[in-house]
């Protein structure tokens, strides 16, 4: 059996390499002096990164992305906490159906969600701005928040809440002294993942922004200009690094929130 395991091991590492290889192109060509993305490499430069500092539209887009990402992650996490608490703690009619419904955005093609939202907003005569994007992103992020918080709440022993009440605390006191501190890592994980998802999300933003673009929409517009390719790569590199940092942090919090002896996955 160990021969098979050796092949599997080689397969696994090869898989991992191929998985990450394209991403490596980002930093490689961000520092490459040629304006064309191709081999052989021509020389080292930080020019493309420097250019980023002078793009006004980029800074605007960045600011907009920040606003949208922070707002959507907070809103989605709040709603997610409510939904998750409700589903993990109580049993009631219609629970399964309503939850399946709330989780639906996970399996629906984004374009359909985007188009339908756009239709509604147009019919209602509402203008498209950053807040329409926030609404759309929150819808997408909420299911992820719920999944993370489900794990956190499931690991919260109900007898701890009962003990707190038994010792004299009311519902609110129990929430702030026991529940909140113990699910806090889950909340952090949800906020970070939500932020990252919003930051990287393109389709909904593409359909629902008016004149204020987000970062991904800005990047999309750059694609039209071959001369901008290296700059785009540089921007992409930065975005990738930020995402990786946020995701690692989120994973750290998620693991802390889901400490359980049974499963390594949670």
């Amino acid at each position: 059996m160990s021969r098979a395991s050796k092949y599997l091991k080689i397969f696994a590492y090869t898989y991992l390499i191929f998985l990450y290889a394209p991403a490596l192109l980002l930093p490689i060509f961000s520092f490459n002096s040629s304006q064309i993305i191709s081999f052989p490499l021509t020389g080292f430069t930080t020019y493309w990164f420097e250019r980023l500092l002078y793009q006004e539209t980029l800074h605007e887009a960045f600011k907009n992305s920040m606003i949208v990402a922070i707002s959507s992650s907070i809103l989605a996490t709040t709603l997610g906490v409510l939904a998750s608490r409700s589903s993990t703690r109580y049993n009631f009619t219609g629970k399964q159906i309503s939850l399946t419904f709330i989780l639906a955005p996970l399996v629906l093609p984004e374009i359909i969600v985007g188009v339908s939202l756009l239709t509604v907003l147009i019919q209602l005569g509402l203008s498209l701005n950053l807040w329409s994007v926030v609404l759309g992103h929150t819808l997408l992020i909420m299911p992820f928040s719920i999944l993370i918080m489900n794990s956190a709440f499931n690991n919260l022993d109900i007898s701890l809440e009962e003990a707190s009440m038994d010792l004299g605390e009311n519902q609110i006191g129990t929430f702030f002294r026991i529940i909140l501190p113990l699910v806090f890592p889950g909340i952090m994980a949800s906020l970070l993942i939500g932020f990252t998802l919003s930051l990287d999300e393109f389709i909904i933003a593409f359909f629902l922004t008016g004149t204020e673009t987000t970062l991904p929409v800005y990047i999309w517009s750059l694609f039209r200009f071959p001369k901008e390719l290296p700059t785009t790569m540089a921007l992409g590199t930065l975005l990738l690094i930020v995402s990786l940092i946020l995701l690692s942090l989120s994973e750290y919090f998620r693991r802390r929130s889901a400490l359980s002896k049974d499963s390594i996955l949670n």
Partner: protein
Amino acid sequence: MKFTFNNDTKKGWRLLSAPFIYSLLLLAAPLSLMFLLSFWTQDYLVLDKTFTLNNYIEAFTQPVYQLLFSRSLTISLTVTLFTVLLAYPMAYFISFYGGERKALWLFLITIPFWTSYLLRMFLWKVILGYNGVFNSFFIWLQVIEEPMTFILYNTNAVIIALTHGWAPFAILPIFVSLEKIDRSLLEASKDLGDGPIQQFFRVILPLSAPGVVGAALIIFIPTVGDYITPKLVGGTEGLMIANMIQVQFSKANNAPLAAALSVSSLMIVAFISIVFVLINRKYLRRY
């Protein structure tokens, strides 16, 4: 469904009401509106609300849409097949040989998913282009003389890019179902005379089938409606239904047709998925 109204019901709904109403307003209502829209017609910017099935007739009879539907399905099914085939050994490796680093492997595998999909698909454009990374690399190594043109701006490119992009996704469900397999069952099968290959086909594969089904659905359903990848690397030959929906919605000012196309895609995808799940249920007893 028994209706039990008690303390739990009150508390449960009190908490669930906000997220539920949010989804109702931002998902159910828009989708319903889109469904309605598919039965109307649009003349430039004016909506004619008389009920008609013309949009659906057009969607299913016009060759251009038929082509897009079948192409989207073909691409998506191909991608599903490839990703699942690649994912299974990977999931198997992590589950049976991952040891203490299972969580780390999973983290490394899934992290790319959380980064910008746009960026990742864009990279394929750069990689597969005429002057792109692949071509220049192989020319530089003198493996080929002329740049390869069959790898970009067609369905091949879309399939390659989608397979790469979605592969990690298929790993997780398969991994979970492999993990659930009671290891003592494997020992029992060995004890009863199975060699490793028989053990795989008689015990491991059947028991991991739910995970494989899950993985297939997770890949199939979203990829049919992908917009970004065909737009970036599909050229004209590789465009998929989502691109047409966007065109009808914006440039062609035919929102009702776009809606009909969207609803049709949803229906087709739902139909195929249900058939797939039912077939599996029939041939694999549920555990």
